[in-house]
């Protein structure tokens, strides 16, 4: 058994009060369509129901859950449905940020191995670029007022100016990027996205399943 203090990550527990006088038989009857979905199996005794789902269709209202147990417990002021459900989707989403952090770290690691392009290759590319840039813009585009493409000489001047700026320490990031190759930023952004999705999903799905059970029990 996984200890409780971490298993809330992918376990959802809760309870819904039954309407006064509602029997467990009637309650399970009302919930039963949820367990008639494709790839769902379930077992029932008088007051508990255990289900298992795999390869859930997206249209399945309980598609995020893989296993669960529902029990009806009598109490002084009426019966209560207690449920305990597990979700691999929640666990995977919780772990995803770590995967993307690792990818980010790997990107940085690989970048340090990269060699800058050889001077010769650079020269050849520049020569080709220059020739193409010498081609005048089509008269139609001139007439319609499209901006003239930047001449390679201007571009170079601009790049040099930027480099000078970098030397002043103002724009060091850009220079580093050129030296180190691919940026790890997208990986870190996705780590953030999945962390947010996890928090949102843990709250949302907890609320949605409670609402679903409550609606079903009320006969909707």
């Amino acid at each position, binding site marked *: 058994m996984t200890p409780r203090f971490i298993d809330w990550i992918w376990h959802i527990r809760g309870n819904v009060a039954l309407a006064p006088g509602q029997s467990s038989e009637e309650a399970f009857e009302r919930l039963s369509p949820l367990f008639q979905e494709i790839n769902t199996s379930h077992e029932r005794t008088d007051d508990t129901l255990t289900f298992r789902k795999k*390869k859930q269709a997206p249209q399945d209202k309980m598609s995020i859950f893989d296993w669960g147990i529902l029990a009806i417990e009598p109490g002084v002021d009426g019966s209560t449905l207690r449920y305990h459900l597990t979700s691999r989707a929640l666990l995977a989403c919780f772990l995803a940020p770590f995967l993307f952090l690792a*990818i*980010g770290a790997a990107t940085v690691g690989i970048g340090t191995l990269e060699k800058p392009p050889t001077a010769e290759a650079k020269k050849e*590319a520049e020569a080709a670029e220059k020739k193409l840039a010498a081609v005048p813009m089509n008269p139609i585009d001139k007439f319609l007022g499209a901006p003239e493409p930047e001449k390679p000489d201007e571009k170079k001047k601009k790049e040099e100016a930027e480099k000078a700026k970098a030397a002043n320490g103002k724009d060091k990031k850009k220079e580093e990027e050129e030296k180190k190759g691919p940026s790890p930023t997208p990986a870190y952004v996705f780590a953030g996205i999945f962390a947010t*999705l996890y928090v949102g999903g843990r709250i949302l799905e907890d609320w949605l399943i409670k609402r679903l059970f409550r609606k079903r029990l009320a006969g909707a």
Partner: protein
Amino acid sequence: MDGVRVGNRIIGADSPVTVGWENIPKVEGGPFKRAFFTWFQPTMLLALVAFWYYAPNDIAKASTAIWIGIGVKLFMMALEVMSPRHTSWNITWKELVTDLFYVGISYTLVRLAGKYFGDDAMIELIRNAFDWSTFAWFVALPLLLQAFLISFIFDFGQYWMHRGMHNWHPLWLTHAPHHYITQLNVHKGAVGNPVELFLIGLGIGGFFDFLPRAALLAGSLGLAVGIYQHINVRFNSPSWWRFLFNTTEHHSVHHSQDYEGSRSNYSGTWIIIDRMFGTCVDGEAELLGMEGGRRMSVGETMVYPFTEGWRSFKERFGRREPVAVPAE
């Protein structure tokens, strides 16, 4: 099921496909809503083309295109929630998380791998082995013609690659996972095995570094048309749009559970390429997927081409068990 005859094929014999524009439901609602869903697509296309045509050099950069792409996708996600096409395709938390996982992998791992031994490395090789100044005549063409040619030629290649995937088993193994999606949503285009992305060539833009503005214009065509391949929103696209361009309707037929339906509408942007080669089916489908709509898990998607490939290999070349002959 009877199906409908399109050309010399029967479409919709295994699973329902609605054939013919006249049979497809229209957006219902007030005049504003109807006008919005009729003119939205052409307006966005025109706006993007005008933007890239006139943007100053400092702004006409790939990074701007990435931000525009993100903005458009966020807007489309909002449209999906506000005006879904089929409620059975509604986005759920789990679907969004899985879709974004594939988006994340293609933005990070696939891009990284591509840089070292995929498209980027190949493009670099080809570029270095070629004198690009022979392309001077192309640069002298009007910008919009350059953009159209880039987009059309690229899509022509994609058409045959995609058609090849549906006809040759080894290629199909890489593309099959994408066909296990059971609904269309904004990010579903990213769902599939990463090997497929290498074949389709995401990094193709790298080829056109020497034509920055034409490449960006071609890219905006891809965005303003391609985005509707996978989306849960209904549009009343004008008939000329449906004639020229790929639409959600076309691509839903391509993803249909109907076998013949899925062998239609291969192009990404220009559906006229399908019209040229007789593979176009004008219609739509709601029931999508393979094997009756079985959802493929992320894990299976990642290993499918290899495990399935190994299985087919063994079946074909493996030692055959002697067939038992029943005694009479």
